[in-house]
């Protein structure tokens, strides 16, 4: 087991800069997820940690040693690939033991490690089968088993669940979490699925255009996003962004959204945003769960307004509603019994205690 450190890591392909200087400290035993849209450099970063890609600049350290020029086999890492990459001509047991056999481990040791991993992954009865006799989920388990038996310093996962169907993905997500709880190996996990990132990670690294947008625990990213990109990428349905500006009304700071809609800000928010010039173009960032049906006795900071709904989506335990404010489509979550219907009016409440204010030009969260 070991920590992993990236210092100003750069990857350039000819003219294209895929990774533009990444600094990242991954602690021992930590489960870190790199997440971002396709082409953001997350897989390249993982492959550089694995040693499958050379780095153009910077340093990668595993367990305190710089491994820039160390070949993959000497980095003591194990990797799980999206398409499993099982050796088709070997049985499950042979697949899992391949690395150990190359290192000439004693037979008894190999067998006990395979048995242990197979038990952990619930594939004991599959060890004599060939990969083509396995289902997708079973293959993914074998791929994980191959990583576990090596007992490496670091696990690297490259979108391991992307080839599975939705139900199996949820199941395997839990399996991966359980395995990590048992073996506690430092893990770097790449995915484009923010739900996977949120559910698995100790810390999430959100990447975009080859740079890190924000590093934080799932809760930090959700509640305190640093940029508009992170705010919109994390959470489903995504955060709403409504054009707005600040104004002073009778000595109080208000947020004006439309000609008719202007809300007084709660005191802590007013203090925080007071220095912002009133002419700045801003965005009100608010998550769907903070736009609900209006209550009879609202708490402080919760303001109500009338809206005409465009579309409603009943989900069972809640109904998603969509309406338009200042040209922006806004999503809210209301009680299924709130009387929301397509094209109908509804009195809504917005919880400004949980609002975000963003600079429309820079995308920074203020």
């Amino acid at each position, binding site marked *: 087991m070991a920590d992993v450190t990236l210092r100003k890591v750069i990857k350039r392909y000819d003219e294209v800069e895929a990774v533009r200087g990444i600094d990242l400290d991954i602690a021992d035993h930590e489960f870190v997820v790199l997440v971002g849209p396709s082409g953001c450099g997350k897989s390249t970063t993982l492959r550089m940690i*694995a040693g499958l890609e050379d780095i153009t600049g910077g340093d990668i350290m595993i367990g305190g040693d710089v491994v820039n020029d160390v070949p993959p086999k000497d980095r003591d890492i194990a990797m799980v690939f999206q398409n*499993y*990459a*099982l050796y088709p001509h070997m049985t499950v047991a042979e697949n899992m033991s391949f690395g150990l056999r190359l290192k000439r481990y004693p037979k008894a040791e190999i067998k006990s490690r395979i048995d242990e991993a197979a038990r952990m992954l619930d594939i004991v009865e599959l060890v004599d089968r060939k990969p083509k*006799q396995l289902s997708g989920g079973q293959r993914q388990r074998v791929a994980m088993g191959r990583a576990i038996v090596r007992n490496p310093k670091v696990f690297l996962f490259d979108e391991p669940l992307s080839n599975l169907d939705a139900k199996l993905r949820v199941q395997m997500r839990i399996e991966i979490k359980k395995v990590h709880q048992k073996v506690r190996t430092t893990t770097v996990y790449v995915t484009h699925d923010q739900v996977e990132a949120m559910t698995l990670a100790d810390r999430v690294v959100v990447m975009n255009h080859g740079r890190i947008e924000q590093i934080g625990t799932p809760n930090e990213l959700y509640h305190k996003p640093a940029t508009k990109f992170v705010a919109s990428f994390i959470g489903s349905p995504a955060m709403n962004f409504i054009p707005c500006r600040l104004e002073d009304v009778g000595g109080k700071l208000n947020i004006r959204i439309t000609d008719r809609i202007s809300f007084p800000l709660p005191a802590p928010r007013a203090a925080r945003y007071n220095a912002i010039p009133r002419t700045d173009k801003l965005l009100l960032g608010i998550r769907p769960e903070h736009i609900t049906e209006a209550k009879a006795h609202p708490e402080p900071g919760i303001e109500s307004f009338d809206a005409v709904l465009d579309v409603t989506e009943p989900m069972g335990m809640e109904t998603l509603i969509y309406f338009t404010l200042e040209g922006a489509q806004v999503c809210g979550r209301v009680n299924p019994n709130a009387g929301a219907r397509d094209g109908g009016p509804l009195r809504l409440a917005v919880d400004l205690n949980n609002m975000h204010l963003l600079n429309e030009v820079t995308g920074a969260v203020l």
Partner: protein
Amino acid sequence: MSTVTIDKAAPTRNVKYGSMSRDRTWALRWSYFFLTLFAIFSLLPPFYMLITSLKSSAEISAATNPWWVFHPTLENYAGLLTSNQFLRFFWNSALVSIFVVTITMLISVPAAFALARMRFWGSATLATGVFLTYLIPDSLLFIPLFKVFAQFGEWTGIQLINRWYVLLFIYPTLTVPFCTWIMIGYFASIPKELDEAAIIDGASWFQTLTRIFIPVALPGLIAATIFAFTVSWAQFLYPLVFTTSTDQLVLPVGIITTLIKGDVFNWGQIMTGALLGAAPPLIIYAFLMDYYIAGLTAGATKG
């Protein structure tokens, strides 16, 4: 076919299926028609060889139905199989083919692996270059090659011309480029995650080749082996040019040079020799054909 009956039985539901199966029926009929045609076309010569090999010289020259044997005899087989000369040709052919196949595989498999996987500067150009060398016909190459070996003999005193083993240097010029090309295709079809997984597991390039690539690409390897064997076994022009003494000849040239004397054609023995000569490749094909079909890569990745 019974399409009409099906229509009658359940007219509304089966109209669409019926028309589809009618389409398929015709496609199958045409397939069988052409397959039969090609089968007859390609099996007629060996059949004629077989017929002729079972005839005596007298019956061959007699004006009877050439497609039938009236007095079958094994005298041609007995004659050839007891002739030391013929057995010598057979032995030479076997030696040359086995060595050529071995040499070819030893060169082309690592070459293909390097060209397909170890991305190095110019590897793509080199791969195309390898194939281009195969496109030069042997009828253009044999004269310069003869000069090369003659010159080599003059300079070093090592006489290679008119020795059966000279063919071990010549045949690979045909087999290595083609087999390399086939193997590049097979290796390229193996998902790159497989070698990456092997490398992370601690395998060297050589171990990746021997423990992963060769077993996974076995069908391709066998295809290439069969090709190399067939080419060396059936090669005619090069041995005709480079070997002349009867004890150095390989089968195809041996049959022609010893069984045709001036304008006298010993047809019975020629056909028998050709038939016996065709047997080894035929047996090899029969045994290894299944490997062509075995989809070994299935299950390697998502499937």
